[in-house]
């Protein structure tokens, strides 16, 4: 791994953790906590993406330890983003947003067993409320838990993919060419 890719890991992890300030400013119910993982994967491949996801979870756990068990979700996100980058799905918003919606389903499927078994579906306030809504709609406990995670992840991952696609297109070509996967992810190589 080159020094540039090594440096990308903490920068991408810090982007994931700092974006909450931007989300707070516009008061949207989003996490964007996988932005750095997806971006690092699209720029530099799965190893850097997985490392970014693990570091993001580890550092986030220092603020709130309940994030650590969800490190598996970050790894799944990195692998999915790698496949999306290989397929050039970041080439436009028309391909990035559906890919993000697909990731939302996969992320919800991954996080539901963790949330259900470890935390009784109480990971964050928003998910707890939507899980309660699922219970009120008559869903079984595990189904209500998936319903809550799905509502949280579906839109979040679509916005994240759209944002990463915008960043990849916003990078100057000379800068993008320094990362091994960036041009292929946007369908330019």
């Amino acid at each position, binding site marked *: 791994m080159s*020094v*540039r890719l*090594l440096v990308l890991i903490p920068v991408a992890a*810090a*982007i994931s953790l*700092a974006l909450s300030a931007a989300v707070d400013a516009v*008061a949207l119910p989003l996490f964007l906590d996988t932005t750095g993982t997806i971006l690092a994967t699209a720029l530099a491949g799965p190893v850097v993406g997985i490392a970014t996801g693990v570091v993001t979870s580890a550092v986030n756990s220092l603020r709130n*330890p309940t994030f650590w068990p969800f490190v598996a979700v970050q790894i799944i996100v990195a692998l999915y983003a790698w496949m999306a980058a290989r397929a050039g799905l970041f080439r436009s918003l028309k391909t990035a947003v559906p890919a993000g919606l697909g990731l939302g389903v996969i992320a919800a499927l991954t996080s539901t067993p963790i949330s259900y078994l470890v935390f009784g579906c*109480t990971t964050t306030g928003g998910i707890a409320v939507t899980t309660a809504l699922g219970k009120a709609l008559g869903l079984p406990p595990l189904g209500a838990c998936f319903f809550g995670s799905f509502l949280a992840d579906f839109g979040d991952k679509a916005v994240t993919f759209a944002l990463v696609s915008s960043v990849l297109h916003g990078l100057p070509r000379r*800068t993008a060419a320094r990362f091994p996967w960036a041009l292929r992810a946007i369908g330019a190589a």
Partner: protein
Amino acid sequence: MTRLHPFTLLAIAGALPALAWIFPAPAGGLATAIVAMGLAISARAFRTAVFTAAPFWLFLLLLHDVPTTVAIGLRITTMVASFVWVVAALPPPRLVEAMVATGWSATTAYVFAATLSAVPVLRARARRIADAQRCRGMSPRGGLAHRLRALRALALPLILSALHEVDERALALETRKLGPGTRRTPLSPPPDPVSGRVARWSLVVACLAALVWRLR
């Protein structure tokens, strides 16, 4: 407790939640939660632990009956209190020194230390970008599409500026000969007495023994 080797502190913080989940509820969770809260008090982190764990109890009550709330709540409280304690008792530079001293690559230590130092810098930059965009007429109010456009106007400059720094940081590291696989000699490695190593392995054995006992 803060004089213990960083790995011993991490072993305690990892063993308490593991035991909370292995031992039968609610007695097992209650015992580990008491120990974890005691540790949090010793590190003057009791309030942080309580404020972090309290929302989970509320949400658990919203979703479950009282016995389930108590069982899961005590386990989550153990996890929260032990992590809050270890964060309060273990300064990141001391952990980095310990990692380097035990043979971890300097790059691994760099990745964690650089992330910890970059987060507050980028958060402050995000707030400055938000202020600048407001001066240019961006409004965070309105419908969903309007807010998403505002989010793009905030997030793009933040991410692009961070990515442009990658080359500068890489150059700085290369001039200091920090590359993958590089080993460094720590300036003041934390002492790691035999008793500490025995305590760490004892905790691992205790967790495995508890797991075997529970699965029988």
